[in-house]
């Protein structure tokens, strides 16, 4: 098992290095002169050259690549052109909101997707199964940003049940808790008004993010469980008179645990790339919203840093899933 995890870890480092390289090359492909664009049209050529030297852009490609890697290794993501602050400082401020959104969504997907998947498998071919199939088609086709807007029209515009955007109601005192998660911080502070407001502000973004992936998870889990339901030991359990519910949720689900972990782990990437859209629609102040504003202002260092943060989070997440898979799966333990 150790060898398996070590192999995965080396793969992880290679993929991150590859990602960094791709991003560096994308940066290099920019048509036009970034320094000229930064300095503006009125600055004289000599001054542009001085700036170029200051930013180290007069050096050959491999030197700049080395500098880029070195800066990243030190945790330096560069300077935001709009806020004139280090990008990593901004990221640190915005990341907790995004993580809160993503984690709550994945928990909801697991909590609903697993039982739905088992039930769909047990009712294979019947009405409930057909409904989940139909929902999976629709779920795969719904544009996340559009679904968010539709929910906003209904629950904020027409019904007025839920807030239409933001992370917490205006006017509530700022939460400066240790975790950065408003849910946890408000509970630690014993501020239930803030907690309620945070939950209310999370409902629509989370539903928007989770709905499409929930249908996919349900279908994937259904086929896994369906395969297991044909096994001999399920037939044995049934002949012993074990109830169908116990067979589904105990015997079958336990054996579907490893594929279920993989299925859920892979959703994290989708959730992460969905957060930017949801954050834009609901003005939710996470790193996606931050990156969106950077895109409007053509703030390239921020956009590339955002891409890198998402990519690394995703790859690390996959690594953790693989590791967990190895720990849970007895077949890999003998390695």
């Amino acid at each position, binding site marked *: 098992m150790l060898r398996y995890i070590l192999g995965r870890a080396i793969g992880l480092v*290679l*993929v991150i290095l*590859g*990602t960094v*390289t*791709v*991003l560096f090359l*994308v*940066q290099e*492909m*920019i*048509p036009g002169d970034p320094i000229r664009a930064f300095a503006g049209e009125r600055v004289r050529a000599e001054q542009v050259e001085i700036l170029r030297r200051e930013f180290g852009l007069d050096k050959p490609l491999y030197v700049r690549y080395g500098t880029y890697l070195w800066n990243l290794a030190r945790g330096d993501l560069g300077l935001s052109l709009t806020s004139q602050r280090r990008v990593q400082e901004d990221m640190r401020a915005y990341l907790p909101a995004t993580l809160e959104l993503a984690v709550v969504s994945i928990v909801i997907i697991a909590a609903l997707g697993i039982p739905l998947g088992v039930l769909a498998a047990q009712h294979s071919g019947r009405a409930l199964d057909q409904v989940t199939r139909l929902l999976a*088609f*629709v779920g*795969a*086709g*719904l*544009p*996340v*940003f*559009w679904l968010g*807007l*539709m929910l*906003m*029209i209904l629950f*904020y*515009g027409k019904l007025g049940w839920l807030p*239409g955007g933001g992370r917490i109601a205006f006017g509530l005192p700022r939460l400066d808790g240790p975790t950065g998660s408003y849910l946890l911080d408000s509970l630690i502070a014993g501020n239930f008004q803030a907690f309620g407001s945070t939950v209310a502000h999370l409902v629509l973004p989370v539903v928007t993010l989770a709905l499409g992936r929930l249908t996919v998870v349900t279908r994937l889990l259904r086929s896994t469980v369906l395969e297991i339901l044909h096994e001999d030991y399920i037939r044995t359990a049934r002949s012993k008179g074990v109830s169908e519910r116990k067979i589904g949720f105990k015997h079958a689900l336990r054996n579907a645990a490893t594929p279920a972990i993989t299925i859920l782990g892979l959703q994290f*990437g*989708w959730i*992460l*790339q969905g957060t*930017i*859209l949801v954050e*834009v*629609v609901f003005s939710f102040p996470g790193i996606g919203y931050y990156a*969106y504003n950077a*895109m*409007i202002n*053509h703030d*390239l260092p921020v*956009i*590339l840093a*955002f*891409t890198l943060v*998402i*990519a690394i989070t*995703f*790859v690390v997440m*996959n690594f953790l899933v693989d590791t967990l898979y190895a720990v849970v799966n007895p077949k890999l333990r003998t390695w």
Partner: protein
Amino acid sequence: MVRGTTVATRRRWPRWLRSPDFVVGSVFLMIFLGLAVFGPMLVPADTNQLNVMQRFKAPSAEHWFGTDAVGRDILGRVVAGTRISLLVVCIVLPIAVGIGTLLGAIGGYFGGTLDSFIMRVTDVFLAFPGFILAMAVNAVVGPGLTGAMIAIAFVWWPGYARLIRGEVLMLKGTTFVEGARALGGKDARILWRHILPQTITPVVVKMTLDVGYIILTTATLSFLGLGAQPPTPEWGAMVNEGRAFIIDYWWWSTFPGLAITICVIGFNILGDGLREVLDPHKRL
């Protein structure tokens, strides 16, 4: 195969008519292509024409989908958007399939260091969310429909490289390829004439599914202000335009978004149907 049909009906109907997915998908495809080709004849010629007297009209018999802030008919613009989506697909898909096929076929057929290198590159691309990379490329290349197409093609080819490589690898060991080689066939000719034609089924199925996803990706980029720019009647750009007015004038963003949804679902159904019709053994 459709469950529950008798042997008699199976004989009577040709195979493609027996897949409901394929039939529904084909009808959808014909409507989509029909709207893209003939649509502009059905709606006002200039969908960017301002008509301030008609602004913010709710859906009615005159304007089925309502009008926007400057009085443009939203139905007309949604129909015009069909052509833009089709155009993007017709440019991006051949590029992605072309690059992917070339690299995948070379890697799979010749193997060795070149193959490992190509596969490591595709690993990097497939290892993280493609949309985020497309967004970064689009932002770097510059906003606009051309930038969006470059970005999407850039992240889309590795999927095809993987698919083709797997198929080529599998077919390389078959007897008919060995036979062709024994007869003195050149590598390029064996690849082109004997191996690649065998890979068409999975590629066509993937292409069909991808049409919907490419339309969705283009729309998403445009929604973020990166792809098509106003006043281009691109669906995602239209959803974004209507966003500021969403609470008071719901129809502006709703109908273009509905068009995107229907497209993705339609091509998904068509792809599933094609899989059934072309390859009954591999039915999911």
